[in-house]
């Protein structure tokens, strides 16, 4: 099918629109609706303060994703480095001009219009890595110069985010970067030796830690060790989930979540709310929707003919998938509690914006899948 498409140059807007991955956008709307429904319940059956704003942000985000999707992928290729530099610049600026919430500086701007640079760096990293690997000839992709450039592009922002301090987002950014590097086809030996090095480093560190540090890490990994402190919320979240049962307690009836025991239940713990009120059926349905989203995106990547577009779609899919995995694993007690939102469901403008921009970039890559991008047009980094 891809081969029968006419070249994109000179096609009308309508034609480009028809090429957008509408089934993907439809799934996005369905998942977003879960968010609106959950937030309506979180505020005790009221559209204010969260559900209405969430719906508005989703609508704006969707329009933005479509707008980004219409723009030729060629443009985003050209914008990859500038966008990355802007995002990195914001991240560096945070400690100086940022506002702090709960002891960590993560935000820039006033309360009415604030951005969280650790969000925007996520799609910027996908773009910049896709550009880097696209611009290196296939036989040079595993060249140490290329691989270590890629690692630096990931490690610098990840370290900045970890120092904010936001360990969860920092590790998430690092994971996302590694996934894109993996998709780019870098030789296995790098990943094997990287994993080995990490294991050795971790072992050495562990045996040089003081007792209280060891304790702190153990509690972080297994919050139940401290049931009234760090483990309190996760214990309560599990009670909420478990008491939901097969079909849940009914919409707006989640006594555990309606009682104010879970912090951030409108943001990071939104899944708890849904799982308590809609039960196993509801939580698995939401997971299945995310699975459909990821499968659609992988299918899209396969049909794109240029490598840049493929990596962008792959990276966007990874971005969503990692968030879902970490967030859900966190609220069901499989991972320590780190502040990672559930895409399209958690309340939060930055998160929706990041997700929608990533989806928009994937849409652009897919809509312009037959475009021929020439490596020599952009030159090489190395």
């Amino acid at each position, binding site marked *: 099918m891809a081969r029968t498409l006419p070249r994109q140059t000179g096609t009308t807007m309508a034609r480009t629109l028809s090429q957008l991955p509408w089934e993907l956008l439809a799934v996005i709307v369905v998942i977003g609706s879960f968010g609106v429904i959950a937030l309506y319940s979180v505020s*005790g059956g009221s559209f204010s303060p969260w559900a209405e704003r969430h719906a508005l942000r989703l609508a704006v985000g969707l329009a933005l994703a479509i707008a980004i999707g219409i723009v030729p992928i060629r443009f985003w290729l050209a914008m990859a480095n500038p966008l990355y530099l802007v995002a990195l610049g914001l991240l560096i600026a945070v400690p100086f001009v940022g506002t702090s919430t709960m002891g960590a500086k993560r935000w820039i701007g006033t309360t009415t219009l604030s951005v969280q640079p650790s969000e925007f760096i996520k799609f910027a990293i996908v773009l910049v890595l896709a550009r880097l*690997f696209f611009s290196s000839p296939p036989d040079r992709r595993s060249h140490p110069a290329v691989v270590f450039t890629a690692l630096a592009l990931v490690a610098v922002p990840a370290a900045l985010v970890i120092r904010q301090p936001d360990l969860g987002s920092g590790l998430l950014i690092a994971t996302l970067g590694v996934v894109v590097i993996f*998709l780019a*086809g870098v030789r296995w030996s790098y990943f094997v030796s990287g994993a080995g090095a990490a294991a050795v480093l971790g072992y050495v560190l562990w045996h040089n830690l003081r007792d209280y540090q060891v304790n702190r890490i153990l509690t972080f990994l297994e919050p139940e060790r401290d049931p009234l402190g760090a483990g309190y919320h996760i214990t309560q979240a599990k009670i909420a989930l478990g008491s*939901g049962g097969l079909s849940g307690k009914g919409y707006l009836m989640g006594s555990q979540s309606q009682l104010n025991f879970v912090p951030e239940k409108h943001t990071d713990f939104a899944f708890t709310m849904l799982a308590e009120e809609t039960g*196993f059926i509801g939580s698995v349905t939401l*997971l299945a929707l995310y699975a459909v989203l990821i499968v659609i995106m*992988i299918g899209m990547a396969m049909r794109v003919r240029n*490598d840049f577009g493929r990596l962008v779609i792959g990276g966007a899919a990874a971005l969503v998938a990692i968030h879902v995995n970490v967030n859900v694993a966190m609220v069901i007690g499989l991972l320590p509690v780190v502040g990672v939102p559930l895409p399209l469901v958690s309340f939060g403008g930055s998160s929706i914006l990041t997700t929608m921009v990533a989806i928009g970039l994937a849409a652009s890559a897919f809509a312009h899948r037959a475009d021929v991008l020439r490596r020599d047009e952009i030159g090489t980094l190395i």
Partner: protein
Amino acid sequence: MFFRDPDSSAENPHFSRRAALLALVQAGAFAAITSRLYHLQIVEHNRYALLAEENKIAIDVLSPTRGRILDAHGRVLAYNTDGYRVVVVPSLAGNVDEVLRRLQRILAISERERMRLVARSQRQSPTTPLIVAQNLDWDTLATLNLNAPYLPGVRTEPGGRRIYHGGAAIGHVVGYVGAVERRAMDDAPVLRLPWMRIGKSGVEAGLEATLRGTAGRLTSEVDARGRHIRTMDRVDPVPGADVKLTLDLDLQSDIVQRLSEFKRASAVVMDVRKGDIVAAASVPGFDPSVLLEANSGSHWAALNASPDDPLVNRATRGLYPPGSTFKIVTALAALEAGVISTTEQIDCTGTYHFHDQTFRCWNRTGHGRCNLHEALRESCDYYFYDVARRVGISAIAGMARRLGFGRTFDAAFAGQKAGIVPDPDWKRGRFGRSWLGGETLLAGIGQGYVLSTPLQLAVMTSRIATGLDVMPRLVQEDAASQAPDAGSLGISDAALTSVRRALHAVVNESGGTGRRARAEVGSYEIAGKTGTSQVGRASADTAHGDLPWDQRDHSLFVCYAPASQPRFAVSVVIEHGGSGGSVAAPVARDIVDLAMMRATSREPAAGDGDRLDRSATGRG
């Protein structure tokens, strides 16, 4: 199908395989999550359901007690009653209707009220408490607590009402509290509590942060019916701080009483030494305690519907052309710029010609030759048209700002207006047109675009009286955080002295426009300036008495006293009162008398106290 690469010639042959591998990893992750969910929600459901039933943790936000507002002498203007309130939390009550029926045996709840509460419980969040009764005494509280086992979801807690003392006299200054607006509820969790009240106007709004205090938090274990099992953690709320004003309640009440013969009027009394606002009256007023009563709806409607805007504090939000009181500004600007001398005479013919326009002096036949002293004393417009033209609008605007126009002051006065000090930049920004020469002439006599508040007029007068950059303040500072003494205005003593002499002449020399502000013989002397500011386009040829009331001139007077050693500055504005000299001036004199009397009776050690007391009581 999805995972097979349809284009074998793609540059990266690894992509499909690696994507497939990652998809597999993802499938594994979802499988792990699903199995965990299955374990929690299906296998262990009964255990967790039991835990949920037995063990609920409730986190309650504890509202802080609002700080009190006191007057300068420690009299309470706003405080909170003791008392208890009863609330029902629907999510814990289960059947709200049944619980309310049981409560009816203890409390006086009408059938209608019960239905209203039940309907309300269905509209709002089940965790948001419903207020069933307030201001309960101790006995009722004890009865309720005794019956607690039969009243699931019912909670009693301390919670008084805001009460105001001082009636309509203090309404504008103190303001009032009201329910939190929906859009403000996100600012802090405590604002979601249905009984939470925040300042809506006056000091209540301006010093909200100080008065509110900090919310506390109670974490407790409750059973499935909401009954308290044990307290897990308690962070007590920090009560709001008391605020002590510079305002004198008695003086404020007396001044409001004096102004009440007028439909709309305001007056500000400022202690020039420290800038303390001793009184800030605005008529008509409102009694904030009446607003907070249960059935205040009709009262609200009446206040809002009144064309006299009783809710508006005219002292800080009323904007008036300062009229001839502004000639003080023009005079100082001209003296400082050196465009006139105190001796130079200008011949007033009654009509000033500027290009092809004519500007009238209020005295049609002309004042004849007059110098600065005479021009201020008799408020000659012709003189100030010429002086304004010579010195220019920028110098006038600059002097106006130095004297306190065009800005707001102490934040405790919530919702102050800054007024307008016009200059060419302002006009370009506002209307996109350039400044006209004739507008300088109008500004020079305080007409045209110039707008000021009574508070600003009092500040100007204080600054003229002292030569210092006096800042008004409504809140007393504790000794630790006292503001530094006001610095000099930087206006030459010679210029200030000649203006002060002229202001003294306005009241005390024959021909002065403010003769009716003269204090009784044997008392202190007052220095002041009249102002009669035109409203809209009233034709100057119509006899004033024939005009409809709302087209008549505003009557203004500013003054300070004693003239020899200034203590108080006073500004008075009577809306549509007519001429400043005949209406506002005698009111200002009475206000000065009241202020001096209060001051000397509070400070018996003051040297000339006896004499002042006698003169004041003499007037009755």
